[in-house]
């Protein structure tokens, strides 16, 4: 019978990495198209970022510097856990500084600091199919993508407008990639959508449970779906960050007491700390 379990270096075996790498290359060649891949069970649960972790594990090399964020922050428990996983299994250098990172794995945010050509942003994706909540069947949505039939999505957005006066989607806001595929940007706030357009960095998306990988190559046109009379609007905050005073950034609302006290602070903790002179 089996003795003590022994795990492979960097957890994934070489055959799995090759399979994921091939999927990544196809994803880059067909921007916005969801490439099926044989996602593996990972030592963290589905929904915790297994897709992102598999993509990162397949991309990482010994010279990379990894940053992991969740909700924009390096110190949220899941970000800490994933960072430790890679420190332990791949022995890779890690950082919390956006600027120093060559690979950034993220859940729900894009860093405030503009990314450069030498950086790769890896997104954790729960539901990769932008049409899924309009049509639950994979057989149907695959057909819609094949035929470039996105009428359903436009109807949904237009119903929002009829009902609320504007599009009522605030995160995972659908985008159109290079005029072809409609894509789910993962549950980032729509505030971050414009950062995807013509980004110098390569953006990779991994959905483990749903077994899909997709990509935005650098300098790829990304348009948030809208209507001429109802153009896409980025979320605006009417206050600056309560800690560093930054404006034009995404803010978290922190409840400070039970009498309605609220503090709005940068969701991107690295950005906020840098502005405050590195004193955390």
């Amino acid at each position, binding site marked *: 019978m089996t003795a003590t379990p022994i*795990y492979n270096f960097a957890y994934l075996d070489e055959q799995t990495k090759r399979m994921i790498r091939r999927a990544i290359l196809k994803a880059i060649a067909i921007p916005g198209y969801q490439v099926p891949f044989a996602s593996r069970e990972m*030592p963290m*649960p589905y929904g915790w970022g297994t897709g992102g972790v598999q993509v990162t594990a397949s991309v990482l090399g010994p010279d990379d510097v990894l940053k992991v964020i969740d909700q924009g922050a390096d110190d949220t428990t899941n970000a800490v856990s994933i960072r430790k996983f890679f420190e332990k299994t791949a022995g890779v250098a890690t950082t919390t500084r956006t600027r120093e990172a060559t690979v950034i794995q993220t859940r729900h945010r894009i860093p405030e600091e503009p990314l450069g050509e030498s950086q790769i942003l890896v997104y954790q994706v*729960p539901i990769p199919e932008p049409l899924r909540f309009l049509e639950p069947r*994979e057989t149907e949505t695959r057909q819609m993508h094949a035929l470039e039939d996105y009428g359903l999505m436009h109807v949904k957005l237009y119903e929002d407008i009829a009902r609320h006066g504007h599009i009522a989607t605030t995160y995972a806001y659908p985008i159109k990639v290079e005029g072809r595929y409609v894509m789910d940007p993962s549950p980032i706030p729509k505030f971050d959508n414009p950062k995807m357009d013509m980004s110098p960095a390569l953006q990779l998306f991994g959905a483990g449970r749903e077994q899909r990988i997709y990509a935005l190559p650098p300098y790829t046109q990304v348009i948030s779906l809208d209507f001429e009379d109802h153009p896409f609007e980025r979320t605006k905050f009417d206050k600056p960050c309560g800690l560093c005073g930054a404006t034009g950034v995404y803010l*978290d609302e922190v409840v400070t007491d039970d009498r309605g006290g609220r503090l709005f602070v940068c969701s991107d903790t690295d950005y906020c700390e840098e502005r405050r002179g590195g004193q955390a």
Partner: protein
Amino acid sequence: MYVAVKGGEAAIEAAHNLLAHERRGDPALPEITAAQIREQLSLAVNRVMCEGSLYDPDLAALAIKQARGDLIEAIFLARAYRTTLPRFGYAEPADTGAMHIRRRISATYKDLPGGQVLGPTFDYTHRLLDPALAEAGSAPTPERAAAAESEASPHVTALLNHEGLIESNRPHDPAAPVCDVTRGALAFPAGRDLRLQALARGDEGFLLALGYSTQRGYGRTHPFAGEIRMGEVEISFVPEELGFEVPLGEVRLTECEMVNQFAGSADAPPQFTRGYGLVFGHSERKAMSMALVDRALRTAEFGEEVVAPAQDAEFVLSHADNVQATGFVEHLKLPHYVDFQAELALLRQLRAEWEADRAAPPARHAEAAE
């Protein structure tokens, strides 16, 4: 003054320590061993092997201990280990007809070649809590029924097949590629081989509920338990470099063949049809549920209309895996405050607009409705 939450790493470590402490329970009591779990909680071990798709009673027992008895967590541990193992190839098809039978019953024939073998079953126990088991004691020695093991036990469905009263299984094509849901993304339409594999790995509770729903009319299949057999089957493998079969050992399997009514169609005569269940270890509930759901998923194959959840392959297969399901359900525990903030801002805006709207003169409504 608000200070950004730090120290996630220390908090995680402390939580893990606490978990280990809770796992041990009262230190005044002896610690349970994996071997005890393997021997005395063997049906839990069987479930973990089956849904973990890893036939290794020792590792399954270890996983149950580590998971504090949470079987889905234990299945997850087994799966996460299994996925790192190198793949040498695919075993030869298991011959369940040659099973060393420990239990074998048919609900369709009173007696049949090989006989009915009751085996270790809860079926006719009275469910009365047994105070004697609360204390350690000796278990009775079983009587051996050697006859049943030596006599050939053909499949009940094979007996029906002689008369042409049940559909024939498609002959096995050794050259056909083996579908493997652990090596390729689930794609639809899914062939029966892929469906059966996904069901064998699927959550027992989910399949039980779906199978039950077919009995209550949501995709009724008029099933009879043609046969349920449990015992050891030899598994063999043909290494590429040798070119001949090498036995790898025995695994315990439970197999269920349901016999289902079928009225016939323009192309097919009226005949019985099959629903099939096969699982690692001893689990009749799972094998029977699987067989019911397998038959339900063959609805379209018989030209019948898909009307019930159990007949919908995309619905069933996409949601049968409990490791996927528990991950996604439980991931709601992870922070979502960025998206929640976005929703909060929208809700505040909608509320402000709604209140402004109510305060405004009616003419504005007409305009807004355009």
